[in-house]
Each structure stands twice: as C-alpha cells, then as structure tokens.
C-alpha cells in the first residue's frame, strides 16, 4: 500500500500510514500530482527514529485524501520535487527551514520565515533575485507598508513602469504559532484563542478547522444546532471580508462611492456577528463540542431581515460598481493568472476560482453543515482583477443564500456537548474553506494522547507565487489593486 486513503476529518492511526523510501514517496507524490491530485500538506515531524515527512494529497473529485510518509535522518538530502511540481515550492522551503533536509536542485531555496536582514543568520541565503541592464531598476517596498496592513517585503524588478519580476519576502510576522500549540496543555481554551489568532480575519475559518480536528480526535459528535450556527458564522465571515475587499478594491482605483458603500455594508455584517457572539470577528463563538452562543427568536429574525436588506443593497451597489467604465478599465486584463498557471501552482480559494479552477472544500471535502447542504462550485474564466473582484460578489450572494437556508435549519437543540480526550497515536486532516480558500490543519497525537505536532496551512501559502506571477508585465501602479484582489495573509503564512 502506497497511501492511506481517508476523508476530511477522518482519523487515521499513525501506525497505519504507509512509510515509503524517500525515493518512492517522491515518485508517488509526483505521479499523484500528475494524475490530477492536489497537494494539501507537506510537512515534517521529528520523532525518535528520525524526521518523518508526511505528504497529504487531495482527490477533489472523489472527496478523498491520501497520506503517506518517508523517514529522513538529520542532514539528509533528496532531489527537489518543485522542479516538476511548482505547487510544492514553498512547502519544500518550509520543510528545509524547519528540519534541514535539503531539496537538491530547488530553484528558489530561500528562507520562509527566518531570513530577515539584521537579525537572521540565514539573511545571506536571502539574496534577492537580481536583474541587470541599463534601464532596469528595483523598487523595494516594506516591511512597513503605506496603509494599515501587515508587514512583508516586496522587491520589484522593473523596466520603466513595467514589472518584470516581483519577489516577496516573508517572516516578519513570525510568532511561533505551531510551537505554541504544543504548550499550555493545562489551558485548553488557550489553543482555541490561539487558533482564532492564526489570522484575525479568518477567526471562524481557522478556529473552526481547529475545533473540528480536536473533535475528530476525541470522537465528539457536535449537535445540529451548533453545526448550523458554525456554518452561519463561517458564511458571515466570508460575506464581511468579501464586502470589505470590494470596498478596498474600489478605493485602490479611487472609486470612492464604491469604497464608502461597500465599507458600510461590511459594517452591517460584522455587527451581526457581534450581536451573535459579542465580537465583530466571531471570537469566543466556537468551542470544543459546539458553540458558546445561540441563535434563536429575535436574533434569528434580525439576522434574516438584516441580510435580506443587505442583499438588495449589495445588488444595487454591485450594479453601479461593475458598470463603472473607469473602474473596469483598471480591473479588466490586469494581473491575469491563467487556469493552467493556477493549476500548476496549486492555487486555492476565490483567486483560483476566478481563474477557472473549480476548487472549493465546502463542495469537494464537505464538513459540518456543508455535508447536509451541498455548495455549488462557481468559477469565472478571465483570471484578472475583474474576475477576482466579481467572484467575490457572486460568493457574497451564495453565502447570503446559505445563511438564509441555515437559519431555517436551526432546531433549537443543544449548543455544546462534552469534549473527550484525543485518541493516542492518531492523525487527522481538517480542511475548511475559509474566505481565502483551503485551510488545512493536521493534528498528530503521541502515545500519551497529547498533541505532538500541529501543522497549519493558511490558503495564502498556495497563492503568494500566483500574485508574484500575476503582476509580471503589468505597470507597477497596478500592483496595489492586484495585491488587494488576492488579499493574502501575512500572519497566516508567517505563523
């Protein structure tokens, strides 16, 4: 057996995961990817026997996940997979940075989180890609940006106004999140709060992936009322951020009406989340075994009417926004990512769907409420800023429909069921469709039933290279609107 076959949130004994030779795992991974599977995780775990590399691939069509492993010893090397499978390029860099196993021939073997100038011994490894020529110049931006956003460093190689290449340096936000998950055993709530802080704009996305992973390990079944409330919260989060992104996209092309209107609409959504759980981003709502706050009676009616009104307002605002010729002139054919590029890079989320790649965890690997209420995958084809903006409008409509449907599915049942200790020596892969795309948490327990490894992947991890490629041959003045159309997470990447 080359792979253990499982589903989203299905636990598997660590002992039941095949252990291949590094060569065989490499062949299997490449042939799996060539056959249309998608890389979900690729990470190491230090054990007494050596460094175990786990690879998790997804077969979206059949809702299956495939896990396999190989063992390495310190300072081992192996031929890089990235040369054949670019989707792995950041995963291999991360594995190298965390465990020192070198992927030979990796075209871009730079630090992921530890190459920061002035602090890191790896600084020298971060020699930026360099272009020569009389007309060539470089523009460095960051880590501190002009707006109120997170830090990261962008290095543009330009000829005149035209971007030839963009290199993105990460790590400024590194807080040691994965390590922190393994501490504080006595305070279970700590991990919940930590999961909600992986990316503060994806509280329900990451927080939900965490609770479902731990519930799967403890074999806890969550009640219907709680599942429905979680689903509503996830779609409120998606709606709010998408509205905020449309506002910011309008702002980036100086379309102030759009900026103001979509910004105000977003406020209504996050205030709905506030009414539900006391926090505008959904903090404190999720709990192991269920949720902490209920939706019933007046709140249910309020959510229903608020969102019905919001949908009307959004329709009118979108009609005006997407009919603006000056806005379309900036959005259309800007920052194009083709479907083939999206597939080769392993892109996820709305950015992938805007390029015609039909990936959506809610539909491909359903969990929670999406197991009972199937979600239709929606794609656009042009892969430009326009498509990445318009897909957000389409998804807002879809999310609002899901919420209205879910409000009818509330059954007034129990909110929270008692938790149970995780089973020993197990692994679970918890996938969720956050508003940016596929969130993948992998939890591994040791023989004592405690977490021994907690691997986190924010969807941004797949999409940064797509942003870098999207801006090639575009004017540097179009970078902000390209960047916003992806809206990737720095803290989710840096962990």
């Amino acid at each position: 057996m080359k792979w253990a076959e499982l589903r989203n949130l299905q636990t598997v004994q660590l002992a039941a995961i095949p252990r291949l030779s590094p060569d065989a795992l490499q062949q299997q991974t490449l042939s799996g990817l060539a056959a249309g599977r998608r890389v979900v995780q690729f990470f190491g775990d230090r054990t007494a026997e050596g460094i175990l590399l786990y690879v998790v691939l997804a077969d979206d069509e059949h809702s299956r996940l495939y896990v396999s492993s190989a063992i390495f010893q310190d300072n081992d090397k192996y031929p890089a997979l990235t040369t054949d499978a670019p989707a792995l390029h950041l995963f291999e860099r991360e594995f190298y940075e965390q465990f020192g196993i070198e992927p030979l021939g990796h075209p871009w073997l730079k630090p992921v989180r530890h190459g920061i100038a002035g602090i890191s011994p790896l600084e020298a490894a971060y020699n930026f890609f360099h272009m020569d020529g009389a007309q060539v110049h470089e523009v460095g931006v960051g880590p501190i940006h002009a707006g109120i956003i997170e830090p990261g460093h962008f290095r543009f190689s330009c000829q005149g106004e035209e971007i030839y290449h963009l290199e993105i340096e990460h790590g400024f936000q590194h807080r040691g999140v994965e390590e922190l998950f393994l501490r504080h055993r006595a305070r279970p709530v700590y991990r919940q709060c930590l999961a909600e802080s992986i990316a503060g704009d994806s509280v329900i996305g990451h927080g939900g992936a965490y609770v479902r992973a731990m519930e799967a390990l403890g074999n806890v079944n969550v009640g219907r009322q709680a599942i429905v409330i979680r689903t509503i919260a996830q779609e409120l989060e998606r709606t709010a951020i998408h509205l905020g992104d449309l506002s910011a996209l309008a702002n980036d092309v100086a379309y102030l009406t759009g900026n103001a209107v979509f910004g105000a609409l977003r406020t209504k959504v996050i205030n709905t989340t506030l009414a539900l759980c006391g926090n505008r981003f959904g903090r404190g709502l999720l709990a192991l075994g269920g949720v902490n706050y209920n939706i019933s009676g007046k709140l249910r009616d309020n959510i229903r009417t608020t969102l019905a009104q919001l949908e009307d307002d959004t329709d009118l605002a979108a009609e005006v926004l997407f009919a603006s010729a000056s806005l379309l002139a900036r959005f259309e054919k800007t920052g194009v990512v083709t479907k083939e590029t999206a597939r080769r890079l392993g892109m996820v989320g709305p950015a992938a769907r805007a390029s015609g790649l039909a990936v959506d965890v809610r539909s491909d690997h359903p969990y929670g409420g999406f197991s009972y209420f199937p979600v239709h995958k929606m794609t656009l084809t042009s892969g430009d800023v326009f498509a990445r903006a318009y897909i957000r409008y389409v998804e807002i409509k879809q999310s609002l429909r899901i919420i209205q449907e879910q409000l009818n599915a509330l059954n007034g049942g129990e909110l929270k069921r008692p938790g149970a200790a995780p089973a020993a020596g197990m692994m679970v892969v918890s996938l969720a469709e956050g508003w940016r795309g596929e969130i993948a948490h992998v939890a591994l327990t040791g023989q004592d039933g405690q977490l021994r490894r907690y691997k986190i992947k924010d969807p941004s991890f797949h999409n940064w290279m797509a942003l870098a490629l999207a801006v090639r041959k575009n004017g540097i003045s179009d970078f902000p609107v390209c960047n916003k159309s992806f809206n990737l997470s720095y803290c989710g990447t840096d962990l």
Partner: protein
Amino acid sequence: MFELLRLRIRHNRPVIKDLRRAGLHPSFRGFPLLASEKCTAGCSSCADLCPAGAIALAPLRLDLGKCTFCGECERACGKEALRFSPGYRLGATSRAALIITAGQTEAAFQEQAIEARKEICRLFGRSLKLRQVSAGGCNGCEMELAACGNVNFDLGRFGIDFVASPRHADGLVITGPLTRNMAPALADAYRSVSEPKIVIAVGACAISGGLFTDGGELDRSFLASAAVDLHVPGCPPHPLTFIHALLDFLGLEKS
C-alpha cells in the same frame, strides 16, 4: 447615472453623528465588572481557564492589557462574579490603570484612566497624524484601525489621520506582540518620527505580548526605549474604543 443617485439615496447617512454617545449591542464584551463577594471560596476556575493569564485571585483582579475578551471566565463562573459589560471605553495612559479590581465601575475607571496633558492637547489637539506599525499583528487590530476611517466612524473629522510615512507622523500606533523579525523595522519607524512624538499600543498583543508571550519569537526591547503614552486594550479593540481613548487623551470633546 440614476442608479448611482438611487444608491446614494438608499445609502442614506451611515455616519455615526455623535461618537461620544454611541452605544454598542448589549452582547459586546467590553468593560469587565468584578464582584468578588459572589466568588465561591476556594474557586479558581476563571483564573485557571483564562488563556491569557489575565486574571489574578485574592483579591480578584483582571488585567485589561492581557485580556483577549474571549468570555471564557464569564461563562465558566456561573456566579456572575465576573461579567463583561458592553462598555467600550477601555483606554488608559498608564499600564497600571488597566488592572481592574473588584467593585470598580466603568465610570470610576474612566475618571482616572486617561490623563489629558495640556501639552499633548496644545501640540496635537487640532491635528494628529499617526503611522501604524503592525509588528506581528494578526490583522484583527489592523482591520479595526482601518475601520476607524470608514464612513461610519470617520475619524478624520477630528483632524486625526493615519499617514503613509513615519516622517509625516506625530506618533506610532503599534499592533501585534512585537516579533523579533519586526524589531529593526519598528525601531527605524520610531526613529523617523520627529520629536515630540507619541506611542500608542493597541490590542492585548502590543500591550503585553498577549498569547504569544512565551513563544520565544518576540523582541519587546523597543518598549524599554520608547514609553507607551496610551494603551488601548481589546482583541481587537472596537473602533470606538480606539477613538474614545484618543479623544480623551487629546482632551477633546470631553463627554
């Protein structure tokens, strides 16, 4: 054209006219009210559960500078010895003022929390330009700070703006736990702001390191060289929390 007009009419006026009197939904977890007389003897469930280590016992205290407002203590207590009110005015000039004691009311907290210095009001009362630096922030605080400028809150009406360069700024607004990897950039930004300058720490992470204190990836030595003039607690702080703290600090429109 007509669609645009329709949109403008439909949009109405979303701006909150009187920010000083704005109220939040009763479910908002804001100012904590502690009633130690309701505690069961020997019970420590709130302090044991607190993910941020913000609660101390005997006597019962809660540190707003560490609190993530997750609400777990309130839910675990069951005796209402500790509950969160929707009061959002949580800012304080001194770090010590952020420690809430039993019986302390929101009004009593506000009376001594923010010291409006004449000199600050004279210098920055009519125009305050701020440079935001995210030093490991999760984008929660950043989104709420950005929201301060939207059409609902319109912070600009007070002459307060976020600017693109520290050289245009009168001070820094810091979010995040101050990661080691951001330490040099943060120090650069601070150096680039001309004197006199202020430092505002926003969110539990910036004030105390928050959940990331013992992850081994922080470098908070910056705070030894630059005093924090204003603390704005929350996880993240509501825009109204930030705005009120600033207005009080500048001695503007005291309500």
